């Protein structure tokens, strides 16, 4: 197991930073917000803030600490990874949470930092860093899911602007988003090379969203229709026809954040330990063990899986740092994270029996009702951002060097 020492920064400097972060949090994080959640990081629901939440977001935005490792010149925190980790530790200690999030932070920002023009970075990154703009992802279409490159939504060249026509689907948060980063076709004669990366304001005339209800009962995403939508060419990221390369890079960021890279994993599996819930609902034997022996070993197996996953996340990040490149292990992370999360949900339901399947109304614990919705919504994590099957294809072909049988 890797136990490489932290090499980013000398220890005393980190200590100074720790003190600084602690003091700042004490001065700026209102303790009344402890235990609340980051409304922006959730895909579901509009961002509704009260005055206190707003002040907290603005304070963090001002400091750039919502996106701690992004460059200072664009409104980021300019911190090293080690400092960002210290900040995270101090936030956890204080019960504070990051009020800045969403697709802009998770995927679009990092991609634009790499591929955007100077003007585009200056226009979009600071607003993301301050949590002022919500982005959505216009990739999938009814006929282009796993086979994203077969997308048909077309952008016609009109000199200084494009006219976009077509349909996107599964646009998460589309009804609450201000802007959309999207992949469009600019050349019908080539599959991958005919794709271009565009940015579109959601309030441009001709953009229309229609929410779709999910099996979890919520409607966190939309069908999005584009009818003669005018998009200025200054909103094109990269060159015309370069969209596939940029779009794929963004998907790497998406997969990374979906696998729970970094602190997200900790949050994903936080909450009351399964064993504790099981003891309550299933009871204990004379030695204080979960009364159902089969369930008990399955919980143990799950916790072992989870721990190996967390250790692998850490190893991958250490390896990435020391090899100056992504570790081979990163490619399995989204699949493992999705599987473990889904297994956890299923276990929670099983542990609580009928009381773990409540939909609404009387007779259920609040946590249990939430967990049912999570269970159902969670079925999507092995589908979106590149399904488990597609990840496995990629692992087999790119990493294991196996042949493309199609």
């Amino acid at each position: 197991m890797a136990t490489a020492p932290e090499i980013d920064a000398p220890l005393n400097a980190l200590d100074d930073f720790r003190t600084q972060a602690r003091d700042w949090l004490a001065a700026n994080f209102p303790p009344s917000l402890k235990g609340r959640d980051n409304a922006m990081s959730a895909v579901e629901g509009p961002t509704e803030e009260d005055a206190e939440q707003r002040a907290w977001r603005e304070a963090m935005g001002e400091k750039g600490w919502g996106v701690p490792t992004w460059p200072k010149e664009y409104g980021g925190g300019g911190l090293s990874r080690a400092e960002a980790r210290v900040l995270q530790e101090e936030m956890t200690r204080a019960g504070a949470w990051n009020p800045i999030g969403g697709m802009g932070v998770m995927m679009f920002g990092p991609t634009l930092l790499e591929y955007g023009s100077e003007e585009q970075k200056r226009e979009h990154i600071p607003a993301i860093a301050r949590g002022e703009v919500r982005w959505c992802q216009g990739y999938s279409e009814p006929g282009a899911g796993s086979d994203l490159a077969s997308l048909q939504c077309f952008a016609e060249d009109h000199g200084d602007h494009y006219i976009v026509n077509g349909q996107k689907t599964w646009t998460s948060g589309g009804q609450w988003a201000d802007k959309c980063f999207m992949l469009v076709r600019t050349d019908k004669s080539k599959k991958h090379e005919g794709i271009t990366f565009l940015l579109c304001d959601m309030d441009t005339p001709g953009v229309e969203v229609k929410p779709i209800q999910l099996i979890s009962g919520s409607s966190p995403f939309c069908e999005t229709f584009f009818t003669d939508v005018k998009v200025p060419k200054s909103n094109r990221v990269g060159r015309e026809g370069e969209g596939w390369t940029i779009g794929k890079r963004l998907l790497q960021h998406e997969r990374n954040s979906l696998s729970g890279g970094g602190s997200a994993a900790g949050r994903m599996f936080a909450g009351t330990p399964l064993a504790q819930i099981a003891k309550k609902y299933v009871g204990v034997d004379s030695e204080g063990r979960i009364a159902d022996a089969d369930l008990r070993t399955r919980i143990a197996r799950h916790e072992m899986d989870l721990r190996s996953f967390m250790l692998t996340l850490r190893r991958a990040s250490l390896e990435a740092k020391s090899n100056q490149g992504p570790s081979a292990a990163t490619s399995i992370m989204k699949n493992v994270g999705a599987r473990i999360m889904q297994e956890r949900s299923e276990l929670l339901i099983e542990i609580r029996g009928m009381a773990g399947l409540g939909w609404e109304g009387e007779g259920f614990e609040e946590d249990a009702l939430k967990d049912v919705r999570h269970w159902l919504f969670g079925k999507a994590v092995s589908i979106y951002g590149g399904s488990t099957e597609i990840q496995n294809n990629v692992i087999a072909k790119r990493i294991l060097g196996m042949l493309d049988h199609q």
Partner: protein
Amino acid sequence: MAVLTEEQTMLRDMAHEWADNESPVTAFRKMRNGAPASFYDPEAWTAQAGMGWAGILVPEEQGGVGMGYLSLGLVLEQLGRNLAATPLAATATATAAILIGGSDAQKAAWLPRIASGEVVATLAIDEGPRFGGAIAAAVTGGKLSGTKQFVAEGDSAQLFIVAATDGLYLVEGDAGVTRAPRKLADSRSHAQVVFDNAPADRLEGGEDLLTQVTDRAAIGTAAEMLGMAEAAFAQTNDYLKTRVQFGQVLASFQALQHRMAKMFTELELMRSAVEAGLEAADSGRANISQEASLAKAVANETLHLVSREMIQLHGGIGMTDEHDAGFYLKRARVLEQMWGNAAWHRDRFARLNGY
């Protein structure tokens, strides 16, 4: 497939046709959206009773058709395919309790009314959210008191077979009975039922009457699950043959072909286990508990797999409420919990086999 008599073949085919014509999944969706207090469609129940299904276990002398468990299973399987919201399974298990444990007078009082579809009956056993917990409900001076959780069809049943500390009792659904709906993910009826000095009539039966009855309930549930698993599998198979990605139908990808082949294999095993359970109930075999545990454990595991894969292999469309996949997933998890989850049945199977 079990060897069926001519009569059973006719019954199965009729149930198949009725389910497809009169009770497709759209009928379930309509019920869910309308959310009637009973959580089923009374007209559909009347039609089912009219075809003799309510009295499928009831002997002819008492107004039933006396066809037995395999026949009941054939019907439940066909209804399960389309997620038909019907009190048939609950009523049939209550019928089983009366048949096994009832006196002549009790049979005469209830079986004809059940067979005609006039009375919806159900078991009220569990007092906690998981099957098989301790029972505290008690009877003094012919009056029963206690609270039962998640009683299937408990919102509308007129007759309850209630487990008390000293056996099973018949309790009518009026005096001393209050119900509170418990809305589960499957949009069916699972009420909390409180008995407060409700007049109770004891079923005799033997010491193990409760086990005999819940074993039959587990087997019946497994039959319904078989139908669900078949339908979920068939719909997934059809979808893979039509959905095109990468210029090919999904069904051409070997990674998916093998998953379907694996599910198909599990389904065949499930069918055998379920049919063996139904046959054990018909012949009154001594090892029915083993057969029940086998059927329910295998049904739980297989339907779990197939319902999960149904969503995954449909991709985004399977995540939408508009699609039926979610209905199968939600109902599957509820039925997995009823009458013992896979772990419970594996544990009992081991005990019954002396290890």
